[in-house]
């Protein structure tokens, strides 16, 4: 599937371009929106901080104002108490007066050390409490309530300064109702500074609890209040109030964030923490409440604070995502439409490629790149049609030339001797020759004929190849025949031939030529070599016929060619060849060379196959085997002439 999608994208330019554009647009959007979202989120967070801070400050101020009232009233009563520290009954009056003057206070105790008043026994605590519309005042100490072991009594005594106790639930037994209470306690000291007792004024914290519980800046936020020991005094879960502390859960499931919050609140610090509360990412804002040792915190789930922001963010992301998809769709459509002429051009190109060069191209009437391409394409089509027409003409001309060449080749071949005398035809000589042109027509030639008991023969190689060489070869052969018809010495034949062809040689061609005249009766051979490869004599052994250095014919009309003479013994084969044999190349561009020619001749001789036809067959086979698949680079001509006069008598000759 993935490969199919990638393949589709690779095949569709419109999809690829659209994807790139949309990807680039998406990157810009992501960058811009990330910055925007970050800034917006920070603003929302700041707003939440400021909102929570305001609430905390307001509550804290409220608490402090009421606590101050309790502290001032207690201080004043302490002053009154210490004016008459020895009158036990007056303590009831002061205690009662405190509540009468401050109806919102919960209770008041003025308690003394055991046996402080000699006539009052171990316990003396003037305790007043509101009872319906009146104030009930009693002596509060007893065996069942040994007040001097209570926190409110011990704390100011031990700390040596006034303080607020940890809130506690005061159970009113007759009504079975609980009231959350905190007490302001101050040590009573006599004139010598000795501790004699404690005055304690309590304040119901129910109003505070209600106030804090009602603090709900966000739909799922809630407020808590903890005491010095981390105990919950306000919490949305009533089961936790006074029973659990902020650290309780951490005892079973360690939670460093919660413990850190608890310790901060215990130390009376103010701050904000981002943490998980009951598995929900939340912000906790906290602040101490006056001097009570209590701390208040507002727990706001992150989802509440950032709820609106998150909804906006989701909407924007959705709009952008849909917009990008729409953009992708439209881009693909537009680009596909814009590129549709290209598809038509491609179809037309295929039609033209199939051979219909005159197929009509659409006219898009456009001036853009596609219009230019269309015009170029039309120009190309016209050029192509013209070129194809020219090609047709050229091909026809070429076919005509080839036909002519084939005819020329057959004419050329027709000029060469076709009849080769063998031992059965004559008793003095047997001849065989082969000519394989490199092209249809070649520049090699060979010829022989008999006159006046002599064999006239020649072999030559015209410079160049093809038709010019073949024409030059035809001229050379004609001149050879003409001159040798009345001249029997090879040097003179050569001189005459040289002069004739040099005079008519405007194209500066030349021919290497070997002319020989063999006296068939005696075996004496006169010969003249004009720059041709020296023939081999294959008889008792293999050797090269000595040749004077002469220039090829047709170059210098006045050159005097030398005559040479050699006896040819019976059984000896004169092996003549052109450089097409020695310079035959194999695929590695190695030459067949003279050494191999010699080797083949030696081997043929050893196998008693030195007769012309056999020798040429062996040589042809060897050169074909050497060349292998390489193209024939030059005309290859070989001619063998074996002198066999008197061979029947079994006389052996040596070279």
């Amino acid at each position, binding site marked *: 599937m993935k490969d199919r999608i990638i393949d589709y994208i690779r095949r569709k330019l419109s999809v690829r371009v659209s994807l790139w554009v949309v990807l680039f647009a998406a990157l810009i959007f992501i960058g811009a929106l990330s910055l925007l979202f970050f800034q917006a989120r920070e603003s929302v967070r700041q707003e939440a901080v400021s909102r929570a801070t305001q609430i905390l400050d307001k509550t804290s101020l409220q608490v402090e104002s009421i606590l101050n009232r309790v502290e001032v009233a207690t201080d004043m009563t302490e002053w009154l108490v210490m004016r008459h520290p020895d009158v036990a009954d007056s303590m009831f009056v002061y205690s009662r007066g405190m509540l009468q003057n401050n109806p919102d206070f919960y209770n008041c105790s003025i308690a003394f050390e055991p046996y402080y008043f000699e006539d009052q026994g171990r316990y003396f605590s003037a305790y007043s409490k509101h009872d319906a519309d009146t104030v009930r005042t009693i002596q509060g100490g007893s*065996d*069942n*309530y*040994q007040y001097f*072991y*209570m*926190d409110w009594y*011990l*704390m100011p005594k*031990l*700390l040596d300064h006034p*303080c607020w*106790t*940890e809130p506690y*639930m005061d*159970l009113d037994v007759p009504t079975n109702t*609980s009231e959350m209470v905190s007490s302001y306690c101050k040590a009573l000291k006599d004139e010598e500074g000795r501790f004699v007792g404690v005055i304690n004024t309590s304040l119901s914290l129910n109003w505070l609890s209600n106030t804090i519980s009602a603090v709900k800046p966000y739909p799922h936020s809630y407020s808590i209040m903890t005491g*010095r*020991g*981390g*105990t919950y005094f306000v919490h949305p879960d009533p*089961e*936790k109030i*006074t*029973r*659990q*502390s*902020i*650290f*309780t*859960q951490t*005892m*079973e499931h360690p939670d460093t964030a919660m*413990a850190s919050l*608890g*310790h901060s609140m*215990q130390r009376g610090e103010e701050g904000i923490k981002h943490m998980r509360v009951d598995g929900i990412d939340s912000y906790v804002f906290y602040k101490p409440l006056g001097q009570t*040792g209590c701390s208040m915190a507002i727990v706001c789930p992150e989802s509440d604070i950032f709820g609106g922001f998150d909804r906006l963010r989701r909407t924007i992301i959705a709009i952008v995502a849909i917009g990008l998809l729409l953009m992708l769709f439209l881009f693909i459509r537009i680009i596909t439409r814009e590129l549709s002429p290209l598809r038509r051009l491609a179809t037309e190109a295929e039609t033209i490629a199939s051979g219909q060069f005159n197929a009509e191209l659409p006219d898009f009437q456009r001036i853009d790149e596609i219009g230019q391409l269309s015009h170029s394409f039309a120009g190309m089509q016209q050029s192509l049609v013209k070129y194809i027409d020219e090609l047709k003409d050229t091909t026809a001309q070429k076919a005509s030339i080839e036909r002519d060449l084939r005819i020329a080749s057959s004419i050329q071949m027709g000029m060469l001797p076709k009849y080769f005398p063998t031992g059965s035809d004559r008793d003095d000589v047997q001849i065989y020759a082969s000519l394989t042109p490199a092209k249809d027509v070649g520049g090699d030639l060979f010829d022989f004929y008999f006159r006046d008991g002599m064999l006239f023969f020649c072999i030559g190689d015209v410079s160049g190849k093809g038709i010019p060489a073949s024409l030059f070869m035809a001229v050379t052969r004609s001149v050879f025949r003409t001159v040798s018809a009345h001249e029997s010495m090879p040097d003179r034949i050569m001189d005459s031939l040289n002069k004739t062809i040099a005079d008519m040689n405007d194209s500066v061609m030349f021919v290497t030529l070997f002319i020989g005249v063999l006296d068939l009766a005696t075996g004496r051979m006169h010969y003249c070599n004009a720059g041709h490869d020296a023939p081999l004599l294959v008889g008792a052994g293999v050797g090269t016929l000595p040749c004077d250095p002469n220039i090829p014919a047709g170059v210098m009309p006045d050159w005097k060619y030398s005559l040479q003479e050699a006896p040819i013994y019976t059984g000896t084969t004169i092996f003549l060849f052109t450089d097409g044999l020695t310079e035959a190349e194999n695929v590695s561009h190695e030459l067949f060379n003279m050494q191999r020619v010699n080797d083949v001749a030696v081997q043929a001789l050893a196998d008693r196959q030195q007769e012309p036809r056999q020798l040429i067959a062996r040589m042809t086979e060897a050169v074909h085997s050497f060349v292998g698949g390489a193209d024939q680079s030059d005309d290859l001509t070989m001619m063998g002439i074996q002198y066999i006069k008197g061979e029947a008598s079994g006389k052996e000759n040596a070279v």
Partner: protein
Amino acid sequence: MKKLTICVLAAVFAVLGSGPLAAQEETIVFTPQWTAQAQFAGYYVAEAKGFYREAGVNVRIEHPSSTQPAMSRLRRNECQATTLQLCQAMEIIDGGIPLVNILQTSMNNAMVIVSARDEDPLKQKGARVGIWSVGFGQLAICMSIMDNLNYEWVRFAQNVNLFVAGALDATLAMSYNEYYQLIQAGMQISDRNVYRFCDHGYNVQEDGVYMTRDYYEKHLDQARRFAEASRRGWEWAAEHPDEALDIVMKYVDREHIATNRVLQRLMLEDVLRLQVDRESKQREFRLRPDMVRLASDLMVENQMLGRAVTYEEIIPNE
């Protein structure tokens, strides 16, 4: 003065004990020495699971108030059985009120001293140390004298607020109760700021169920059945701690105790651990004579007992 009071109370007991109220079928009011918590799980289980009823004894569990020692209820005949720590029981016997240990549950000492963070209790000479007003902590007083620490003892009713508020340098705590309350209050406790009495030669058994010897002798069968059913309650609690905790929480809620399941679970685990003898690894439910002798020697040496109280004085007569 103290001795006179105890003598008068003993006389009252004698009179009450011989009266018609001492009949076999009367209800035993049992007062644990503290407010409702997992420290008394076995008794709650015995009552809730009907072990007392099955044993043919009527038992009513009544808790004391925070400043009223359980013993004062026994003295006033407001209850007939109470739990006491061994040292408390010995003090009372020394004071002239013969008591009988009818069931010993604790086999180890649970008391610790916890000092403020990074303070070593053994280096806080003359420190203000909190101690329960209702009379636990005899061994701590002995230790303070013997180790020349001369702590200034501050008696408090209950809870750890004074220590948490910084009014005390250190406080006594039970490893199953106040120790966990301190952790719950955010105290950071390590080996350095905790002194465990059981690890320093003061491993004296604590909780046991006591009756006045007079009452016991007049209600022998009832007392034995009460003790047996109580023991059965503890054994059941040890085998079914989760169900026992459920029962404890019912009592805690009924008594409006400001605690929670986490604290009570930790307390129950620790109390059950303390019931296993260190040497035998068994839940033995017996007083160890060597521990009685150790407690007696320590308290006599530090003038907390007028005379040695022997093992035989505490256990029931055979």
